[in-house]
């Protein structure tokens, strides 16, 4: 009898032992770091006013009155929210609310003062001077000065930090090449006094203002980074920031709770007590949470729900700067023939793809550069392209197919005869597979035998980059609205030039756009580049990206930008 009891007890202890060890550790943050107690207490002391919000929310229940916490979903756990390291949109959304750069972007996409209240450019376009606001502070209450920007910008170049966007945002700053090689002080950024920040460029960059508003160049606090290393951006206590909100609670895989930063210069304009970012990965889980009202806005809407949501007042579709396109491997036959490329492009019924296959969540693309890209005079780049007409007339599909057949014949492949079998590679996510199946049919009508190859995501990117494919899905979402951000993709030596498009005229036009100081000349060069790209069919644009999301009507005062960001900092929740 005793032994029997023992048996069950042993089995029970096995289970309980594991269960209990779960219970003990669950509520204490892992790795609490003794060296940063100083920062922690500062942070706590300065943010006492927001403590209510934190405790309210710890119960995980819906919003309580008084202290309004906005509960939203923009994606799963961000890989990183270190401004220098982030390269993802969901991380960018969080940085937007916890940090503020020298400049900011308003609801209309215009540059407005951020941490800098004014800025000016020298006549040669090489020196940019930013004047910081009075009394700027970090979320822990310590002073923020121009020297913090000097430290932060140099940090972005640090090879040990290895910031993915370093070259994009600082490549034109004098001394950049030496700085990325390890000599950080070579970077020509200076703080003549606490309130002035001066940047010297090696060549003029008319859109440098947009970069000064780019999250990678947010100021970060040296004290917390010195004390905590890379781990500073993984815990609420050590995540010191300067934006409208700071992180008061972070449970990886569950949520990030941001509370109003009372040290922010414009804190009076912030109505919310906090924002809860629910780190939900599964679209169906997000949708359930939205339906129960636990979350008031979700970015990940299950695609199968879209037909029933279209037309609802809480379902939004809004353009972002980016294009879904196809890359053709120009080093391989038959894609080295521009007529074949053009035929393949014309055979696609873009309206059908965007409106039917992609359920209206994309917009048919007749150009490479879609809505949201801004020309040098501030107007829409697309409106001035090709004399205001789309390069491909998407409304005349039947005529396009006739033209495609003619082009194939001209290339010596009448009715597709003589063309080798082509492989189309894509990963399996969103509408990629549906599009692949459509291409099989559309190109099949030209007499082309298309094999679809589904590649796992982790292998897909290197395969495409190494040029180990015939044709493949591709896409780009812009980082800032200057057209060079996307047109650079087709520059012969660009790391994202997956099709290996190599056109001397195109490269020359892009060179001009980089160096000229004359706005009209620059605009002309950028349009010329797109003209060449479309005439040569260097790639096949299919559709423009949109963001589509569900947002309760209770949320007021928020907006969505063409960069794929939601601005909730000035939002409120209607009762």
């Amino acid at each position, binding site marked *: 009898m005793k032994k029997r009891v023992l048996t069950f007890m042993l089995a029970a202890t096995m289970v309980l032992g594991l269960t209990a060890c779960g219970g003990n550790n669950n509520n204490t943050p892992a790795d609490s770091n003794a060296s940063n107690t100083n920062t922690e207490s500062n942070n706590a002391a300065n943010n006492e006013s927001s403590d209510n919000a934190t405790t309210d929310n710890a119960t*995980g229940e819906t919003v309580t009155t008084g202290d309004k916490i906005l509960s939203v979903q923009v994606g799963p756990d961000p890989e*990183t929210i270190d401004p220098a390291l982030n390269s993802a949109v969901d991380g960018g959304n969080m940085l937007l609310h916890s940090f503020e750069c020298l400049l900011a972007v308003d609801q209309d996409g215009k540059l407005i003062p951020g941490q800098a209240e004014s800025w000016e450019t020298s006549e040669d376009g090489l020196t940019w001077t930013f004047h910081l606001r009075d009394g700027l502070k970090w979320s822990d209450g310590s002073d923020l000065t121009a020297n913090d920007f000097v430290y932060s910008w140099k940090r972005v170049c640090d090879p040990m930090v290895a910031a993915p966007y370093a070259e994009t945002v600082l490549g034109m700053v004098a001394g950049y090449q030496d700085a990325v090689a390890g000599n950080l002080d070579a970077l020509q950024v200076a703080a003549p006094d606490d309130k002035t920040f001066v940047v010297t460029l090696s060549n003029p960059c008319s859109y440098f203002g947009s970069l000064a508003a780019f999250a990678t160049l947010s100021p970060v606090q040296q004290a917390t980074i010195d004390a905590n290393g890379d781990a500073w951006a993984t815990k609420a206590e050590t995540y010191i920031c300067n934006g409208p909100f700071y992180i008061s609670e972070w449970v990886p895989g569950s949520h990030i709770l941001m509370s109003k930063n009372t040290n922010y210069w414009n804190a009076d304009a912030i109505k919310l007590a906090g924002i809860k970012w629910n780190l939900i990965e*599964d679209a169906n889980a997000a949708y359930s949470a939205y339906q129960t009202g636990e979350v008031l806005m979700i970015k990940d809407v299950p695609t199968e729900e879209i037909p029933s949501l279209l037309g609802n007042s809480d379902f939004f579709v809004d353009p972002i700067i980016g294009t879904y396109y196809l890359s053709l491997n120009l080093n391989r036959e038959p894609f080295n023939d521009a007529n074949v490329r053009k035929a393949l492009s014309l055979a696609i019924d873009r309206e059908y793809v965007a409106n039917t296959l992609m359920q209206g969540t994309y917009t048919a693309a007749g150009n490479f550069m879609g809505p949201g890209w801004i020309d040098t005079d501030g107007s829409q780049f697309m409106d001035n392209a090709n004399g205001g007409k789309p390069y491909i007339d998407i409304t005349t599909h039947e005529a396009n197919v006739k033209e495609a057949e003619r082009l194939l014949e001209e290339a010596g492949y009448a009715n597709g005869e003589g063309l080798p079998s082509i492989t189309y590679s894509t990963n399996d996510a969103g509408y990629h597979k549906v599009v692949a199946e459509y291409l099989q049919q559309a190109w099949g009508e030209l007499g082309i035998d298309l094999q679809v190859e589904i590649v796992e995501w982790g292998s897909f990117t290197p395969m495409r980059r190494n040029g180990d494919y015939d044709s493949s899905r591709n896409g780009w979402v812009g980082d800032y609205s200057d057209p060079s951000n996307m047109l650079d993709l087709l520059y012969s030596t660009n790391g*994202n030039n997956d099709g290996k498009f190599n056109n001397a005229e195109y490269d020359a036009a892009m060179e001009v756009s980089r160096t000229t100081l004359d706005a009209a000349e620059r605009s002309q060069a950028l349009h010329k580049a797109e003209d060449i790209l479309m005439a040569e069919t260097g790639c096949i644009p299919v559709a423009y990206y949109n963001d589509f999301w569900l947002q309760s009507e209770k949320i007021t005062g928020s907006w969505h930008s063409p960069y794929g960001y939601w601005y909730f900092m000035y939002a409120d929740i209607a009762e």
Partner: protein
Amino acid sequence: MVKYMIKRILLAVVTVWAVATITFFLMNMVPGGPFLSEKAISPQATAALEAKYGLDKPLLQRYFTYMSDALHGDFGDSLKQRGRTVMSIITMKFPVSARLGGISVLTALCLGIPLGCMAALKRGKFLDSLISVVSTCGIAVPSFVICTLLMYLFGVHLKWLPTMGLSSWKHYIMPVIALAFYPTAYIMRLMRSSMLDVLEQDYMRTAKAKGVSGFWILFKHALRNAILPVVTYVGPMLAYTVTGSFVVEKIFVIPGLGGEFIGAISGRDYTLIMGTTIFLATLIVVMNVLVDLVYKIVDPRIKLK
């Protein structure tokens, strides 16, 4: 017995080493890498990152460095979740999965064993058929279907239970049901068939003939023998359940370890793949050793050699 244990432990160490080695080389054979994204990082930045994490070294050298570090308890930094060590990710997420998994396994045992016995005793009766139907469903229906059904019914439609997180006991109900459903069904079946087997044995008839009361026959003579297959199953099942389920965690938004297994592989987070694999392998091996010990206690006739 001591000799046997030493042998088992040595074998366990070899097993974990073999798993680690195979995983290390396999994952490096798969194309892709941790620093790739849709937007190309400049070659300089990639080189700097590879140098920082030692990925620029030859594969064999990396293998020996990794193994020696791991032996010293250093599983390295995650390559994707910058600033977190592999150890900190496991110690942060495992407790969440372990608690949920532990409760689920207990639930499965508490339900599965008695129901299985009952089915065996009432063989061919209505109760037996009912339990059979339920257990067949439990084995056949995948967990994501159960999760979705529960979520729709109790979360969205009736609004009785919260749909995400683990912040109160109510939050546990749906994930525990989803996680415990399959093991409960499986244990019921195992229990039923082995119980039927045992009930046919001669010693049962002898016991009955000697006039031992029904309850004691069942509890002392039958259950003890019949439970052995369940013990065999529970060991590894426990290891799998406490390390979290990818599906259940995704659907109920639970910050557990399950998602890390999958996320690490698709993100080519080499150090995290190694860390989670070694962790799971160790757990399974330990469970198997424990199962052997429990065998010995349940059935003293078994000799551990």
